[in-house]
């Protein structure tokens, strides 16, 4: 099992590095999906098939697809890749990666000098997961439920239909006040603002 663990860990690290270095967002997301799959594999090799399956269903199967969905909608082209290329200069990444390397060296030092503990693999079946989730960690589950509820309410609020957009001839509303303040004026202002920004 530990061989599988190390292989999938290496795959995870390699694919995550690829995520950072790809210039094209969709290719980067593909590597991210591979990274999640290998994390799922790591869970499987550690004896947690339930978490592994959930990792693939939720992260690889839904969240990354939504990311790709958004990237597809943004219609990023060659220019974005070029921009990425310009941003990813050595002077940006050399210092953080040097710091991370220090941490890695420390971790390796600890791993090899510390107590030689053999990797424990114990099967965690869905029943155990369920019992600990709804017994020991029930407060956490409920809090996460609240958090998700807030997210759903927010999404529903954002996605709520605004008042129907009217043709510009009909736009000068029903009330006297709206008639007095033409809508066109505002558009002009916003245009000026964008011009200033550019």
């Amino acid at each position, binding site marked *: 099992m530990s061989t599988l663990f190390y292989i999938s860990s290496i795959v995870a690290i390699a694919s995550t590095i690829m995520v950072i270095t790809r210039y094209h967002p*969709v*290719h980067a997301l*593909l590597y991210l*999906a591979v990274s999640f799959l290998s994390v*799922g594999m790591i869970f499987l090799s550690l004896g947690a*098939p*339930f978490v592994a*399956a*959930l990792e*693939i*269903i939720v992260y*690889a*199967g*839904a969240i990354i*697809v*939504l990311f*790709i*969905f958004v990237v*597809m*909608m943004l219609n990023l082209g060659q220019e974005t890749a070029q921009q990425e290329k310009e941003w990813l200069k050595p002077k940006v990444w050399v210092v953080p990666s040097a710091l991370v390397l220090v941490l890695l060296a420390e971790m390796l030092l600890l791993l090899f000098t510390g107590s030689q503990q053999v990797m424990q693999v114990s099967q965690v*079946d*869905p029943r155990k997961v369920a019992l600990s989730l709804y017994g020991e960690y029930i407060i956490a589950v409920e809090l996460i439920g609240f958090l998700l509820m807030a997210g759903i309410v927010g999404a529903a609020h954002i996605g709520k239909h605004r008042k129907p957009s009217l043709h510009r001839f009909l736009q000068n509303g029903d009330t006297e006040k709206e008639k007095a303040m033409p809508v066109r004026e505002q558009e002009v202002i916003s245009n000026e603002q964008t011009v200033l920004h550019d």
Partner: protein
Amino acid sequence: MSATEHILIVVGVLFVLLNIAAGLIWVERRLLALWQDRLGPNRAGPLGVLIVLADTLKLFFKEDWIPPFADKWVFILAPAIVVGSVLLSFVVIPFAPGIVVADLNIGILFFLAMSSLGVYSIVLGGWASNNKYALLGALRGASQMIAYEVFMGLSLMGVVMLSGSFNLGDIVAAQQNLWFVVTQPVGFVIFFIAGIAETHRLPFDIPEAESELIAGYHAEYSGMKFGMFFIGEYLGITLISAMIVTLFFGGWLGPAFLPPLAWFVIKLFFFIGLFILLRASLPRPRYDQLISYGWKIILAIVLANLLITGAIALWLRG
């Protein structure tokens, strides 16, 4: 189980599945024709079965064209994912006692995981084609499949509650006395609907809707790459039918005068026929109708079903 036996099962299952998927081309064309008062392909070979061979040869010899504006590697990757993910799902399906490739503890979750990976083929294929119709198809496919994956998973949880296991073999064994379609009729109907949406079969073939999007996400594909999408679709039908049979119709169980495998195959083909009948009879809903139907109606029903099933299961156990 010895290693040779295991390899034999793997190769056998793969061989039979690919042949069923190819044979479905003929089955579907004949059945559709019969339901439309036509005869369908009946020339090549006895009853026209060799039309499968002719179709395959045609697909092999077609020009395998990769458009210059496409993202080449992603374009090639997409059709491989669809067949790969569906074939991997078959790993957990028990065809008969002892005939299962991998008797996983988390069989249902594995199936859900693999079917959720199937989305990638549509999304990547549509995006890599660099074609606006393909992109529209991919967008529709992604939202449709992610939405219906949720209901598919939730509709199965009733079965999991009643049988107390994620293992498909155990689930079949739990239906010894009563098929789960009797105790979980709502779950069955919703799993069936979600299964159609998940395999993007008609009437929910919104990602490829010929009359609106040419061929949707695989508009740019030709040759055997298109063939992979084609085979993937038929494998998907077989997979969903096999899952329905396993989860709700007692898998291999049946009166003893036929071997278990035969019962499984009979039930399997009944549901494949039902899929084709759906294609022959029902019109395609609009895209927003499908999604709002899912989130506004099916989600409520499936959650209520889950709640009631859980309550009854608790009550029965005291």
